[in-house]
């Protein structure tokens, strides 16, 4: 399986560990990734909040580059890039005025035929949970994991559409395949505050505490995510989010690719675990120990 890979800005900086672990897991599972040459930022929330034409044109530039390089499917790991690329593609396909406008702005036509896929979608639907289970070398036995999908992977359903919008299960299936226990909890698709992290930190910390405490009360020892914004808000900001709340312990919040990587027997150095703020060492030791038993 070969895909054009769109890393996005977060995977080059704050989420370099998501980049590293995604590439390591794909390599281990024979998913070939080729970076889109000279890719540019998708525009993220600031673009769709400021200029609707720009919010379509920036993703389209990347889709054109992937198409010119001969690919028919683009894979991204960042949930925000995924939502922006999907939304732009959806608009170009549904609305001829949008398609023409994007063509005028980028100076090239784009027909909207490229497929945009998220790494979770590819793992669960192209490769399949059963095939992944067969490749697990160090099952993370008994680890209780809350899968947190957030907003961008699940909404709006007519645009993203690879799992249920209110009760997604693909990450839970991967956790189970890796030998862990998927905790049932109610805030799977609640928002973490995403890009308000910098301008409205108080709001993000309130939402972060709510998510962490709910996962803890549901019995989770750690959370898995597939979005750089969720990870930053719940892990990097966790010390602030928990300030004044003595009721919850340190809760590691790791990328699904890091968890899956450990279970696939990929050395932890290749998964960027040192980038985590909370409990990186403890968690990987636990996984390694579980693998031996």
């Amino acid at each position, binding site marked *: 399986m070969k895909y054009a890979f769109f890393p996005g*800005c977060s995977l*080059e*900086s*704050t989420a*370099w560990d998501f980049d590293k672990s995604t590439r390591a897991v794909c390599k281990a599972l024979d998913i070939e990734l080729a970076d889109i*040459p*000279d*890719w*540019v*930022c998708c*525009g*993220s*929330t*600031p*673009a*769709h*909040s*400021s*200029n*609707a*034409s*720009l919010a379509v*044109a*920036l993703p389209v*530039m990347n889709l054109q*580059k992937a198409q010119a390089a001969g690919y028919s499917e683009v894979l991204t790991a960042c949930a925000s890039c995924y939502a922006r690329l999907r939304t732009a593609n959806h608009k170009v396909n549904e609305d001829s005025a949008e398609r023409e*406008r994007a063509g*005028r*702005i*980028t*100076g090239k036509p784009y027909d909207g035929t490229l497929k945009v896929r998220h790494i979770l979608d590819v793992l669960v639907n192209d490769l399949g949970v059963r095939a992944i289970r067969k490749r697990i070398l160090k099952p993370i036995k008994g680890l209780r994991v809350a899968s947190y999908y*957030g*907003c*961008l992977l*699940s*909404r*709006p*359903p007519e645009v993203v559409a690879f799992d249920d*919008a*209110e009760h997604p299960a693909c990450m839970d299936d991967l956790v189970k395949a890796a030998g862990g226990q998927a905790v049932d909890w109610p805030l799977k*698709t*609640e*928002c973490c*505050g*995403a*890009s*308000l992290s*910098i*301008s*409205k*930190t*108080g*709001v993000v910390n*309130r*939402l972060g505490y709510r998510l962490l405490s709910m996962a803890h009360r549901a019995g989770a020892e750690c959370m898995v995510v597939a979005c750089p914004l969720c990870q930053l808000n719940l892990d*990097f900001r966790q010390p602030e989010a928990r300030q004044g709340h003595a009721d919850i312990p340190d809760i590691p919040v790791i990328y699904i690719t890091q968890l899956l990587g450990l279970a696939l027997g990929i050395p932890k150095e290749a998964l960027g675990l*040192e*980038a985590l*703020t909370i409990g990186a060492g403890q968690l990987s030791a636990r996984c390694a120990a579980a693998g031996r038993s």
Partner: protein
Amino acid sequence: MNATQKNAAIPSSLEWADGALLAEVERRSGAAVSTCFQCHKCSSGCPIAPDMDLLSSQIMRLIHLGARNEILDSEAIWACASCEACTARCPMGIDIAAVMDTLRMMAVERKVSASDARTRSFNKAFLSSVRWHGRVFEAGMMTLYKLLSRDFFADMDKVPRMLRKRKLALLPHFSKSAKDVRNVFKRAEEEEKKR
């Protein structure tokens, strides 16, 4: 300001039956705001609702009523995290998140209010980074954000941990298409004026 005071202020700018605001928001967002029947499902599921001075369902109703100033001066349009829970759940299929985008753009265009300068400054700093580098350069973006928002001290204590965890690059990653991106920004701005 409590709810009574806020409501007391509303009639001052109502356009009432003229419907210009409703027409403009519907045209620019592509969302059928006029079909809102005030079920409040959007507000009930909104994770940011406790931090908003107007709830999303109230904003929909105020659009019907033409209360332009009350909406465009609100904190709520900037508190919205664009999580799209409202859009996904609206029984009338109104793309409420797209309406919020449109309202933010309208608020910026009229250049009067300074309600929530921080999120505006963040958007501006983020996009200028993309405009010049083709990609986001965090250290440069944060410097510009701090200059624009005058929010100098927030998060400065986290810089050492950012650096230690290699989460903050000190040099920009340029895309070789940075020049094309600058042209795309220019043309997208021209296209927006035509809408």
